[in-house]
């Protein structure tokens, strides 16, 4: 929570972010000793916390009338503290009924008081409706917690409950700073169908780039969470798909705040200024851009959210000098590259797994779970992937390249492995030492899953192997394909 709070309030000193009370006290103590308060009798912690909250609010609100603001603040805090006391008391009584009785035995109600008691209490069923309270509906996103003085109403199922639409904002004490209390909108990207794409032979666009450009681009995106987990193949497809976009003049809007976003950009040359208008979209007029919040230079990037789904741009980005160059990537291309490669690899793994006799009794659903959990590893030529005599921990599917098995004392390989072959599968079954060593003959790519992972997903292999077609009537029901 601490990090996020700091990120969010980038402009605030860390000690003013809403940490837990204990943290607050500590940080304030540190501040005091730095300020030379040294060994004097310490202020009460509760006081320090209040002062810190006040500091924070003053920073947030920048009031003109300081005394009035402070007076309001303390009056509100007092009201809040009193109400919270009452609330805590009433919620203990009303919300949960009694303490959690699940711990007391199987017949008690783990959710609270038994039905009969609850019925007679009647405190949850409230008929009152206060029209005046209905202005701030909980279902609208713009009821405000900042600025003015929020009135704390204790009421949850309490005496003044009424409908949830009669709601006054509760205290956000202890909540993340500026936490949005409104309803959250669902997001979604275009629906892409991998089965269809397998048929239409789609291949990602390819725009040639120099080795220099490639390495610069790689450096630009490697730290980005949308790219950091990609494998080499996906990476090179995406680097190839980035298209050059010259921005010939200064003051050209590349993206406009509030517009729908489809592209992600990396700056190849030049620099760009980022403006945010606090209204959420660009406004007409000379200062409609809002405030300049950042400058992005060569190697920087922007607009990444557009790679996930179509959402309004959070800022306006304008070229800050003549003849800039950008690399652009659109969402459909990005998602399609990821989806196709993920989908193809998943199918490949599932078909490999079908060939493993030890796993022949797995249902399709179980196989897809295992395929989901397989991890890709690459080994250079001549690597000992498993060592004879070691305790087996994982099994391997050979995705590409060749490997050979050797037994101690023999110089010729006892077995050759090609694409689609597997080895080390007995490790899933028991803890016996590896019967042979497997060494890569070329560079190889393997998909691997540890025994632990396998058992976590499906339980012990031994019991899976014991299944026969005859006795697996129930287990054969594949929840994905039973219809």
């Amino acid at each position: 929570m601490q990090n996020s709070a700091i990120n969010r309030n980038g402009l605030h000193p860390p000690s003013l972010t809403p940490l837990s009370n204990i943290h607050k006290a500590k940080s304030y103590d540190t501040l005091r000793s730095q300020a030379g308060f040294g060994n004097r009798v310490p202020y009460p912690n509760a006081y320090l916390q209040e002062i810190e909250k006040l500091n924070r609010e003053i920073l947030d609100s920048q009031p003109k009338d300081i005394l009035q603001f402070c007076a309001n603040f303390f009056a509100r805090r007092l009201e809040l503290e009193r109400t919270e006391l009452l609330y805590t008391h009433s919620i203990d009584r009303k919300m949960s009924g009694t303490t959690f009785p699940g711990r007391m035995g199987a017949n008690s109600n783990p959710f609270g008081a038994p039905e009969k008691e609850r019925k007679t209490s009647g405190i949850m069923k409230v008929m009152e409706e206060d029209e005046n309270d209905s202005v701030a509906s909980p279902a609208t996103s713009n009821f405000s917690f900042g600025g003015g003085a929020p009135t704390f109403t204790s009421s949850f199922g309490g005496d003044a409950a009424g409908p949830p639409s009669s709601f006054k904002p509760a205290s956000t004490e202890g909540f993340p700073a500026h936490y949005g209390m409104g309803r959250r909108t669902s997001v979604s990207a275009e629906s892409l169908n991998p089965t269809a794409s397998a048929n239409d032979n789609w291949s990602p666009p390819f725009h040639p780039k120099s080795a220099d450009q490639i390495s610069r681009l790689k450096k630009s995106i490697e730290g980005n969470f949308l790219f950091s987990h990609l494998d080499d193949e996906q990476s090179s497809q995406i680097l190839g798909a980035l298209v050059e976009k010259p921005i010939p003049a200064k003051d050209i809007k590349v993206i406009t705040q509030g517009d729908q976003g489809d592209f992600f950009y990396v700056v190849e040359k030049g620099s760009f200024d980022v403006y945010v208008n606090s209204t959420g979209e660009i406004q007409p007029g000379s200062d409609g851009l809002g405030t300049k919040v950042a400058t992005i230079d060569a190697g920087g990037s922007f607009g990444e959210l557009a790679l996930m789904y179509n959402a309004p741009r959070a800022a306006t980005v304008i070229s800050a000098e003549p003849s800039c160059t950008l690399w652009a990537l659109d969402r459909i291309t990005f998602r399609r590259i990821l989806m196709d490669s993920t989908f193809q690899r998943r199918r490949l793994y599932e078909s490999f797994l079908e060939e493993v006799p030890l796993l022949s009794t797995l249902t399709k659903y179980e196989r897809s779970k295992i395929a989901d959990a397989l991890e890709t590893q690459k080994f250079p030529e001549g690597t000992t992937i498993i060592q004879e005599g070691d305790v087996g921990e994982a099994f391997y599917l050979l995705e590409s390249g060749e490997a050979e098995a050797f037994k101690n004392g023999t110089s010729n390989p006892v077995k050759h492995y090609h694409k689609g072959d597997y080895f080390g599968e007995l490790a899933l079954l028991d803890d016996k030492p590896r019967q042979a060593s497997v060494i890569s003959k070329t560079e190889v790519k393997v998909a691997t899953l540890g025994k632990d992972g396998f058992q976590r997903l499906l339980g012990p292999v031994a019991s899976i192997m014991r299944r026969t077609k005859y006795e697996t009537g129930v287990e054969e029901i594949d929840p994905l394909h039973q219809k």
Partner: protein
Amino acid sequence: MKSVSRMATTVIHKASHPLSSSSSSSASANTNTNLPAPNRNHNSEMETSTTTTARSAQQEKEFVAHYANKTRSLKTEEIQEDKRNKALGHSSKRLSVKDFELVRTLGTGTFARVWLVRLANASEEDRDKVFALKVLRKVEVIKLKQVDHVNHERSVLADVAGHPFITTLITSFSDHDSLYMLLDYCPGGEVFSYLRKAKRFDENTARFYAAEIVLIIEFLHEKEGVAYRDLKPENLLLDADGHIKLKRRMNDMGLGAELIGKIGETYTLCGTPEYLAPEVIQSKGHTTAVDWWALGILIYEFITGYPPFWNSNPIEIYKQIVSRSVHFPQEPYISSEAKDIILQFCTVDRSKRLGNISGGAARVKSHAFFKGVQWDEVYYRKYRGPIIPPVRYPGDTQCFDQYPDEKAGREPYNDELKRKWEHHFEDF
């Protein structure tokens, strides 16, 4: 923007027909384009219909009314009976929007509007029976490329109709302009509203809702083979007894994601930023495991009042989700069982994520957080809801927001569109 008056919330019997008021108030309104008023062609079809058809329509109305009777008690056997016989969720070729009286809007989306309705010309005994009628305009559905989606949604809803904690599709029907889904009405509104009002839930309350959701997820994953993919307090409704009903997504903001997608081939990013699983964010191809992740986030939000990963900038949320684990605040107190189940759900490695690992939902149910919970009793709604919504009468809508009337002058569903698309709507 004219909003529906509060009159509807006070005396349901006196509520005027909202359609007549909206069409008369807009001079430019074309009767053909005013939704969901049935189109003239359709009317004439109805008039020429045979007496047998009329009788069937009457029978279907009675089924609808009878269904409403059952929702009062919702006995176990009745739920199961409905499931076995699949009396619910059928497409009706007899019912029309004229069989219902539209009371007020419960929610809107770009191509859908949900109305509180009751049976038109209802007998004295059936006057109190109310439903939610979701109306989808064919033109909008086509324009937003949601044809497959709405058909899919209808069929999934029909499959799951009868589950105690999922909104029930009673029946569906269509007319010239629109598609209709008749759903049970949950007068309690969203759990979201209660959570924000209470600031946070105590663990018993969180446990109660979590337990019902576990049964929903178990059913969807292990019986139906689908993932929900958008679990959050906003999508949980409360019925009159305070039990969960998983919401029909109202296609909010027109981002028409699948409500429930068949798993296995799920590559569409959809959900809500705070609740997205890391594999969804990183397009790793996701499975039903995303729902268990979201349940961990949900329990956290129930108990603390806010989700574990939060920032005003969604990109920062995603960075947190893929890079760090869930932290717990010092306040409020969170039991070690609750912390453990949250951490086990919110595990990046899907081969370690509770719910996805061997044992599936059964393993979730035996977690210490649910110790003492009698799962059969949860399913059969034997536990009393921790929050009983303040519902004063069956059609009470005080737990819902007010919505403005529908704008007039919508694009008509013309013959050209009809030729091209009508066969796609046959299932409705």
